[in-house]
């Protein structure tokens, strides 16, 4: 009889021990490159962009905001590369004709994958960020890197003045 009681206790114990706490990721998140648009005339003032789209060099569209205004964008830089070229394209009305203005910005960076915990796994950050302009026809006046270390989703990392 003692045997059976003992056995029962152990099975219950084994049942309890096989319960695991829920592993939920709350502490960390992968970073995006946050780009905010500012006015070229008064650099402190945020200035939205209209009829704007974002393309890769080969023409594929990253984001298209044709009938909305955009104050800022979050860009994912590829982790298998250290350089990423993006075309900032804007449609403007000039003398009742639509004109496309393009600015190419090259972002240089070091991608980093950091293991954080069982629940979160790996998160993406970027270090040594720099930006340069290439082949400009015109609507951007300056690209400025505000933070060379891109480690979160909330900060502004790059400012574009136009």
């Amino acid at each position, binding site marked *: 009889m003692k*045997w*059976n009681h*003992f*056995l029962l206790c*152990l*099975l219950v*114990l*084994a049942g309890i*021990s*096989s319960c*695991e*706490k829920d*592993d939920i*990721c709350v502490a*960390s*998140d*992968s970073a995006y490159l946050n780009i905010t648009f500012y006015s070229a005339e008064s650099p402190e003032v945020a200035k939205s962009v209209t009829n704007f789209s974002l393309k890769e060099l080969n023409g594929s569209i990253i984001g298209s905001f044709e009938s909305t205004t955009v104050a800022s964008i979050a860009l*994912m830089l590829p*982790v298998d590369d250290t350089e990423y070229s993006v075309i900032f394209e804007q449609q403007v009305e000039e003398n009742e004709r639509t004109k496309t203005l393009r600015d190419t910005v090259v972002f240089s960076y070091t991608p980093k*994958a*950091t*293991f*954080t*915990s*069982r*629940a*979160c*796994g*790996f*998160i*993406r950050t970027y270090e040594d960020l720099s930006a340069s302009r290439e082949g400009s026809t015109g609507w951007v006046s300056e690209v400025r890197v505000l933070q060379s270390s891109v480690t979160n*989703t909330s900060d502004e990392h790059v400012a574009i003045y136009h």
Partner: protein
Amino acid sequence: MSMLRSIINYGCLAVCLISTSVQAQQGPGIRAGLDLSKLVRSELQEGYRGAELFGDLSFKKGSRIAIELGNERFRTKEEIGQSVLYQYSVSGSYLKVGLDWDIYAQKKGEKNQITAGVRYALSQFTTDIGQAFFYDTQAVQTNGNFPLYTDNGPTLNSLKAQYLEGVLSFKTHLVGNFYIGGSFRMAFLTGEQSPENFDNLWVPGFNKVTDGARFGFSYNYGISYFIPLKKDK
């Protein structure tokens, strides 16, 4: 599948424990055994392969030196919903050495045995990270796939873990010199050599290592052969 596995495992264990028989009392001797639970799990659980040999030597009435030697490989993945976060595979060996003491007063002529014991264990293993993705809140919110980090992550060699284990085990006479039994184990991680940019999430012989807790739980059952060293009158 995991439900079925549990039922079979607990079922086998229950049968082992209930099928007690009354025989002549066991004297000192050497025992050598094979873990059956790991062989069963190897068949039933995808990604798991393991084997363990164990033995003990009675050096004093009611006390034994116990040893376990095993090898395990476990391939698994972490997921959020249906989206895979990362896959990894751990393989390696472990050695456990310690003592067992009888905690059940045997009736005259009884061969059943309940023992409590302690072990000091060493694991040596390799972790191989497979396909891995970046955790991304946006992907969680939209139930989308996580952006890819790598198709084949690094292999992390020369990992080690040390742990202390408390053991509660049962053995009952089967036939001839054969015994069948099982044990419950609670382990406490005392030290580890962690890899760079990853964690020891699963350790051979220890099982799953949870975040923020250093305890591991496991159980097993197996069959053993007992060689008496002298007749006990």
